């Protein structure tokens, strides 16, 4: 096809030329900044002689808790990047009015909003939930590890490769500017011939494989590795939420992979799945991407619902209200989330009956969601509510998520959606539910489980300040957007006329982003301050909040084998019941020998090779793609032929470790 021939390629470097390294001042400074940070880290690690430690204790570790912490570190830094993207967009929008065109070129602005969406959904929200799954799920079901520890490490590295490709696009070439769901024909070869869309595709493809593997891994973990006594209806609510999330992942991520696969066939081989001409159908892409995209929304928010269920019950010192109804509500949401995708494009011109069906199904989801909120409120009712920061995040969630949910139902009324579709009203809606729901849920979980992970609590005062900044910041950043949308402001504008009268509202929104940045400042300060004063806030008991579930029955931080003796769960709030029946704390138990997974560097290797593969496919360096694919296969074969992937921890060795921890706690 002439479309392919038009692109200059060489055998060795594919499409890669020196031009790919040329950027304007703003882009270059971001790229150079990232590089400097990496150089600094390398020098720092070398100076401190920490490479060995990093490799053995972290990068090659198959310990689910360490993998979880690595997820949180990657996602935390991506959250910072995503917020900087957001701040850059709002800055452009308050500068680029009337005769002024701001400080960003239109293509650069479009890359920023695409990167913002991609980062926040795939690398922040997905990374946070994967991190929390990793750390909490085995502990909460009383297991020593996940079902497939190596697969878990591989998932993490594939996720990190997705992040890596996105970051490389800052320095070599450019990123996609077609929005985070990349509708063709705009994302097709005809209108986006450069590498941006390819970076987007391969970054999502590779991290998507990681997500799917995580989904299957934890699905098996929950089904096969629960401790004795924990029947399905005795599982903590968080586990129920995670289980449904995993079902969603297993059913929806293959759709994403196939859809992006077809798009890349269009782009690489000149096929016509989604082109406007030669029988292609871009509307098919839009259907498919949302057949994945809508379940994805619930993949993000269900774990947050699970976290709130734990947090509210614990800090109200009361059983979770309406457990059975909560389980059914989650299951209903899981099912319904697959039959609402068309509400993302009522404006495509489907008939009134089709629109009405998908609109009504969308509204129906509001019922189980509403039920959950009522159940949480009645968990607090006749409880003893402690206003710790996790509860503050919960209260903030109820307010902001309910506002966002109400607008969601409003937009399910298709004729109303015609007037707000793709406007800033929509942006305000999904940020209200995504920040108010997912992010606030994550922050609640982060504060709640922090002492379990690290052995000391976070500072409450600073957490409270962070919450207030976030809460009012989010309101200030998004309430004006609702109004702007109703005024006719569409999303993704890098410029608008002064006569529109939108400026004051954009200015308030920008102020909101600043407030959120201050909130993040408090969170960073909180983390550093709490590390510095960790002795003061140390958690020796393993149960700092008077918890209800099994993760609180082990030490903080848990030893690498989680539980010296696998617990027995006889009731829903297993640990709470144990304490009621006079649990005396961890004593000298009859230990048994156990098997734990050995470290493996193959996850890192396959990750590195996938990075090369992704980079090669973006730039059409086909020899490198073939080579790295072969090497990946070789790694898989090596792993499969390894016989001794586990080692034995003897009972006496475990006793020694337990004694040592005991001694450390008393000094």
């Amino acid at each position, binding site marked *: 096809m002439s*479309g392919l021939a038009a692109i200059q390629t060489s055998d060795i470097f594919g499409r890669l030329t020196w031009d790919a390294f040329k950027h304007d001042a703003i882009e270059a400074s971001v790229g150079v900044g990232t590089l400097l940070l990496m150089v600094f880290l390398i020098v720092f690690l070398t100076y401190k002689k920490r490479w060995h430690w990093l490799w053995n204790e972290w990068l090659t570790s198959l310990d689910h808790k360490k993998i979880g912490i690595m997820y949180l570190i990657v996602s935390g830094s991506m959250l910072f990047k995503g917020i900087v993207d957001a701040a850059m967009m709002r800055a452009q929008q308050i500068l680029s009015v009337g005769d002024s065109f701001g400080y960003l070129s239109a293509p650069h602005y479009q890359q920023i909003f695409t990167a913002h969406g991609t980062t926040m959904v795939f690398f922040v929200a997905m990374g946070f939930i994967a991190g929390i799954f990793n750390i909490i799920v085995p502990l909460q079901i009383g297991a020593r590890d996940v079902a497939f520890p190596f697969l878990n490490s591989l998932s993490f590295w594939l996720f990190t490769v997705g992040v890596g490709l996105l970051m490389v696009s800052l320095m070599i070439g450019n990123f996609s500017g077609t929005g985070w769901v990349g509708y063709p024909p*705009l994302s097709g070869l005809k209108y986006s011939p450069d590498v941006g869309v390819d970076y987007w595709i391969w970054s999502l493809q590779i991290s998507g494989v990681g997500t799917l593997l995580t989904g299957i891994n934890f699905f098996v973990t929950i089904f096969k590795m629960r401790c004795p006594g924990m029947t399905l209806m005795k599982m903590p609510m968080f586990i129920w939420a995670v289980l449904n999330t995993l079902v969603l992942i297993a059913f929806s991520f293959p759709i994403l992979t196939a859809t992006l696969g077809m798009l890349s066939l269009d782009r690489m081989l000149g096929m016509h799945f989604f082109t406007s001409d030669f029988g292609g159908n871009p509307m098919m892409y839009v259907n498919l991407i949302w057949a994945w995209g809508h379940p994805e929304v619930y993949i993000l928010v269900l774990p947050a619902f699970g976290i709130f269920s734990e947090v509210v019950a614990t800090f109200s010192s009361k059983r979770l209200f309406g457990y059975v109804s909560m389980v059914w509500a989650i299951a209903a949401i899981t099912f319904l989330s697959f039959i609402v995708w068309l509400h993302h494009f009522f*404006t495509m011109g489907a008939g009134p009956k089709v*629109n009405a069906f998908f609109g009504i199904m969308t509204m129906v989801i509001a*019922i189980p969601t509403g039920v959950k909120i009522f159940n949480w409120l009645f968990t607090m009712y006749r409880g003893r509510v402690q206003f710790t920061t996790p509860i503050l995040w919960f209260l903030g969630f109820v307010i902001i998520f309910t506002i966002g949910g109400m607008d969601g139902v409003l937009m399910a009324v298709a004729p109303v959606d015609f007037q707000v579709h793709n406007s800033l009203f929509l942006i305000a809606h999904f940020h209200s539910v995504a920040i108010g729901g997912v992010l606030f849920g994550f922050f609640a979980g982060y504060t709640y489980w922090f002492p379990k992970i690290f052995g000391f609590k976070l500072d409450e005062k600073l957490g409270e300040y962070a919450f207030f900044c976030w809460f009012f910041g989010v309101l200030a950043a998004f309430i004006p957007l609702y109004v702007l949308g109703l005024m006719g402001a569409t999303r993704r504008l*890098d410029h608008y006329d002064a006569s529109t009268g939108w400026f004051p509202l954009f200015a308030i929104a920008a102020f909101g982003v600043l407030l959120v940045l201050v909130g993040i400042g408090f969170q960073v300060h909180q983390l550093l301050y709490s590390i510095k004063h960790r002795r003061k806030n140390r958690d020796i008991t393993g149960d700092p909040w008077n918890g209800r579930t099994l993760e609180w029955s082990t030490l903080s931080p848990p030893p690498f084998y989680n539980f010296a003796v696998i617990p027995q769960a006889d009731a829903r709030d297993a640990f709470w019941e144990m304490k009621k029946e006079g649990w005396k704390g961890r004593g000298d138990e009859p230990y048994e020998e156990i098997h734990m997974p050995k470290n493996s560097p193959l996850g890192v290797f396959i990750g590195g090779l996938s990075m090369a593969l992704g980079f090669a496919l973006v730039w059409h360096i086909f020899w490198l793609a073939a080579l790295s694919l072969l090497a990946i296969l070789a790694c898989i074969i090596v792993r499969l032929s390894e016989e001794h992937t586990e080692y034995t921890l003897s009972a006496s060795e475990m006793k020694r470790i337990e004694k040592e921890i005991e001694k450390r706690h008393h000094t």
Partner: protein
Amino acid sequence: MHKNLKLAFFLFLIGSLVTIGLIYFFSAQIAVLSPAGMIGEKQRSLLMISVYVMLLVVVPVFILTFFIAWKYRASNQKAKYSPEWDQNHTAEIIWWGIPLIIIVVLGILTWKGCHDLDPFKPIASDRKPLKIQVVALQWKWLFIYPEQNIATVNFFEFPKETPVEFEVTADAPMNSFWIPRLGGQVYAMAGMRSKLSLIANGEGSYYGSSANISGEGFAGMKFTAQSTTQEGFDQWVSSIQQSSSVLTLDAYNELVEPSSYVPPQFFKLGSPGLFDDIIMKYMMPMKGMHSRGNRS
């Protein structure tokens, strides 16, 4: 702690009241809330009714949240404490039931609204509707009047109180055709023919734009829709019919070249079947017509 919470609560309360007040007083400046035609009016009233119905649940939720959290705060030892109480079927039936009723009401509104406000449905009127064919280009809007034999770019006029039937397509990536004060929106897709019917009550000029990202010059893809009297419209049409610039196939191919922030242009229509040709070009490659990067 409690002091800060109270402060935050009052800040939130005052903020909410101020916001609602501002929206109420400035609603004339908010396009969707101050529609200028029947379709927009119906969409606004549907919006308002839905909001009111939902507030029946949302307001109690807000009040309950604050009330319960505060009443059962740990320091209030006088409040009842029943740590094992976790089930009450009556209560649960109420909060499965009330949202269900509200969704049934909204569902009926949606079903009716979807049929009544189907963009493809013509507006009932004793006046003959005006046909305007809309083509989204990179990055401007082409308006073709097949019956008046004229075409315009980024500006169009139409008589008030007369239904306007838009046929919408694209010779570009997907866009969305939206005039907020008249009513919403339909996608403009290459090779597809979408329809939208709108009407204006009075004379006025209305902001319109593309609501779907379509590439580099997307932000400059704006147009003005102007409603006027029938006489004014006729005059405007005949002035363009006498103009010397003609939209031939060559002129169209020139217009298709990407450009943004394009000032209004006016043409006599040189090629009467232009709109259908533009749609057909994606069905089968046509001779003499090409767009940027068209592979044939």
